[in-house]
């Protein structure tokens, strides 16, 4: 299967899902009016990836903003990865947040409390996302 590469826009994140290395990245802003349209191809890609995943998969999430319309879709991505982990593969979510952004840290903790995947909270200086 091929990599999923989407360039970021002021309302949607950069996506870089590489099936060869198991490196998955979601970066920037996720604030579209209709998140289901944006996330459908990502969910479908993970569905396919889950049939023959790498032994180790790491999803890097580095979001500056996400809206509540995106939050359920992001949960669906994690649920797909939960399935990958349930079949005996190593899966990690690396949740990046800016040093002073407690809200983004809390959002990561909220997901970690719902999803059965190890989360690593990674403090960074600044999220380099698109301008609105």
């Amino acid at each position, binding site marked *: 299967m091929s990599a999923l590469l989407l360039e970021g826009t002021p309302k949607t994140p950069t996506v870089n899902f590489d099936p060869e290395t198991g490196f998955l990245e979601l970066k920037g802003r996720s604030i579209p009016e209709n998140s289901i349209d944006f996330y459908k191809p990502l969910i479908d890609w993970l569905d396919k990836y889950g049939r023959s995943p790498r032994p180790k998969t790491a999803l890097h999430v580095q979001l500056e903003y996400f809206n*509540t319309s995106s939050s359920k879709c992001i949960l669906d991505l994690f649920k797909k990865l939960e399935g990958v982990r349930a079949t005996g593969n190593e899966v990690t979510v690396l949740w990046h947040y800016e040093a002073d952004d407690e809200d983004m840290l809390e959002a990561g903790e909220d997901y970690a409390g719902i999803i059965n995947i190890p989360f690593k909270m990674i403090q960074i200086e600044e999220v380099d996302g698109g301008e609105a």
Partner: protein
Amino acid sequence: MERVDNSVDNSGGGPGDSPALGGVLCGIVISSILMLHSIHDLYDELERKRVMLTFQGPLSAELISALLGAMERRMEGIEQDPRIRRRVFNVVMECLQNLFHHNNNRIVQGGRTMSTDEPHGVVMIAQTTQGYQVLTGNFMAEGDVERLKGHLDRINSLPPEQLRELYRETLANGTYSAKGGGGLGMIDIARKSGGKLEYGFVPYDKDNAFFSLNVNVTN
């Protein structure tokens, strides 16, 4: 076109009715002076109320992007604390998207509501002594008022930790609303605000009510 001829008949005066025409012209001059005064009054009032952004009219995804971009640039010049900047941006984003999605596409003309093709709404963002306020208003179906009121009252009754718990439960329960948020929007707005959501409903007719929301983001 025929319209041109008709407009002469509709004007009420016959040909050569110059006093009436003079009256109309004079009226235009007076009303335009009044409008010039009122735009200055509006400017003064917006300044006095420390309004950062205000809009009333039809909403589109492109317009929401433009309003968010304008807000972000203004906030960068005003607010030093990045946490407050982010919270205000989040609240404005969710409020505008609420306006866009939870809208029964109606406007008022001549005191009565009528349907339109696009969602309509009003938004005003202002600085306050404690921080910022985000005010929005839109028409909604009268039949949905009780459900929304119950949702807002429940949110307002919860302390921060329980509000976070409600957010997690709502996120985890797996149901989607038609637009994807699944009832998370108001909870998120309340969490980012750190205060109570102030709201009001004005019944217009048996099918429509005007919903107003005031969200304070405090320093």
